[in-house]
């Protein structure tokens, strides 16, 4: 534990905990609308922003936020127009984003170690100002995702119904896109752009194996994200592993553990006779009364 007496370790731990809480709160909506990989795509785009920031000597984080928000809004508008070309558009953004980032970083004076810090996260790079940015933006993400839960649930669950309910469907979709971009960028330092998507999605995948409702899934996923982030940073500090990778390995480890537990529990339950589900005819034709 002695490592955590250093201020930068405390900063790293605190920022990871905030991200661990915020990422699954957003990720549950992305999973619900089958956009589990969108965070990854936006992370790639954010990298171009990092490269531009390093090249022009401006803040890489601010440039990454701008690039990620532009990319996220572009993806959402493409998704809204025609669904057929959506995955191709995503592919263009993924590879365009990462190639642009690598080229721009190469043009700047930065070393490849600097690029690695953004790709996979680096503990020592979390300064006090970074922590304040992460705390403020993380709180904003949490407030939006929890406060707007009924509306966001309705849009992600059944977009046409939400439209007929008169909900501002486009505004809510764009809010999700921008929130994804913000979450990716604040998580960039702690977890890295290549792994942040895992922290959005994996805790949700773990939680939904044991929960019955949306609200419970959200709460459980946030708890799992908090655990993975805290334990991952501790592991990184103690064993000197890459922080982002440690967090994600623990998140995946929880997924595997829960999957095995659920499978085992089902097997135990199957030995008892389960109530037979009532058969339902495919289609019933009833005559007029």
């Amino acid at each position, binding site marked *: 534990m002695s490592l955590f007496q250093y201020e930068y370790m405390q900063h790293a731990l605190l920022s990871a905990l905030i991200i661990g809480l915020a990422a699954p709160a957003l990720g549950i909506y992305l999973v619900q609308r089958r956009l589990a990989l969108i965070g990854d795509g936006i992370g790639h785009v954010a990298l171009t922003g990092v490269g531009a920031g390093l090249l022009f000597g401006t803040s890489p984080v601010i440039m990454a936020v701008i690039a990620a928000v532009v990319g996220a809004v572009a993806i959402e508008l493409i998704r809204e127009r025609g669904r057929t070309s959506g995955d191709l558009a995503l592919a263009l953004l993924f590879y365009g984003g990462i190639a642009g980032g690598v080229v721009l970083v190469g043009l700047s004076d930065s070393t490849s170690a600097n690029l690695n810090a953004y790709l996979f996260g680096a503990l020592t790079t979390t300064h006090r100002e970074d922590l304040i940015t992460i705390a403020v933006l993380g709180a904003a993400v949490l407030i939006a995702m929890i406060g707007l839960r009924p509306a966001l649930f*309705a849009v992600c669950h059944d977009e046409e119904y939400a439209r007929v309910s008169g909900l501002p469907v486009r505004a809510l979709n764009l809010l999700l896109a921008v929130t994804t971009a913000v979450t990716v960028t604040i998580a960039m330092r702690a977890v890295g752009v290549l792994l942040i998507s895992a922290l959005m999605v994996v805790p949700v995948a773990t939680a939904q194996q044991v929960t019955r409702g*949306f609200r419970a*899934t959200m709460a459980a996923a946030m708890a799992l994200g908090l655990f993975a982030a805290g334990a991952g940073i501790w592991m990184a500090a103690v064993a000197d592993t890459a922080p982002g990778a440690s967090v994600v390995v623990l998140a995946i480890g929880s997924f595997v553990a829960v999957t095995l537990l659920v499978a085992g529990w089902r097997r135990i339950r199957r030995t008892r006779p389960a109530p037979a589900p009532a058969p339902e*005819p495919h289609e019933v034709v009833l005559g*007029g009364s």
Partner: protein
Amino acid sequence: MTPDVITVTHGVVGYDGRPVLRDVSLTVTTGEVVALLGANGSGKSTLIRAVLGLVPLTAGTVTLFGQPARRFRQWHRIGYVPQRLGAGSGVPATVAEVVASGRLARRGVLRPPGRADRAAVAEALHAVGLADRANDPVATLSGGQQQRTLIARALAGQPELLVLDEPTAGVDAASQEAFAGALRAFADGGGTVLLVAHELGPLRPLISRAVVVHQGVIAHDGAVPDPAGHHAAPDHDHVHPHGPEEPAGLWSTR
């Protein structure tokens, strides 16, 4: 004269240049229970989707509660029941959570749910006979029960107009009866209903008017047709002239 709830005037809808609805005019007034009938691909589902603004009209106009659909904002007056719940993404949701979405049109996006919302959700679940399943995941319900969940979601918003897309397709008998009961209670309370159906089943006594859509035009508008003999065949050609002196017996039961 009762006020018009839905008016479609010379509506035309096409997908990729292929016309699906060709010059359709339809008026639904307060308190009516109108069934849109027709074969698969006749355009009946497209017609209600056009009424709700989910597909754009190529030509013609739609008014809802006397307002042009483009400017219509009182969505809480309409309850929409889609054909089926979208394919599950794996994130579980309880029946009560899905039904609670029906309150958003009334409550708005920013206000958190209150006591009135919870009461309306409970009442809607009771109306469709799913009160005991409120906290079960929707995915564990049968197809008919999921359909009833969607009807409860629409009822939870306490609408004046219900628009339903094939609510009884592939639904078990118990759910059909529960659904007919909920619809009867809604109509008895003064509600207006527009529903798309393939066959009416237990809903038949509720229907006050039937509109038959055939190849993108309205082929019949009046009493509920009696499918019998060759009329009941799905490929039967429903085209015939209609006017005030339309012979009784061909389409009407009287």
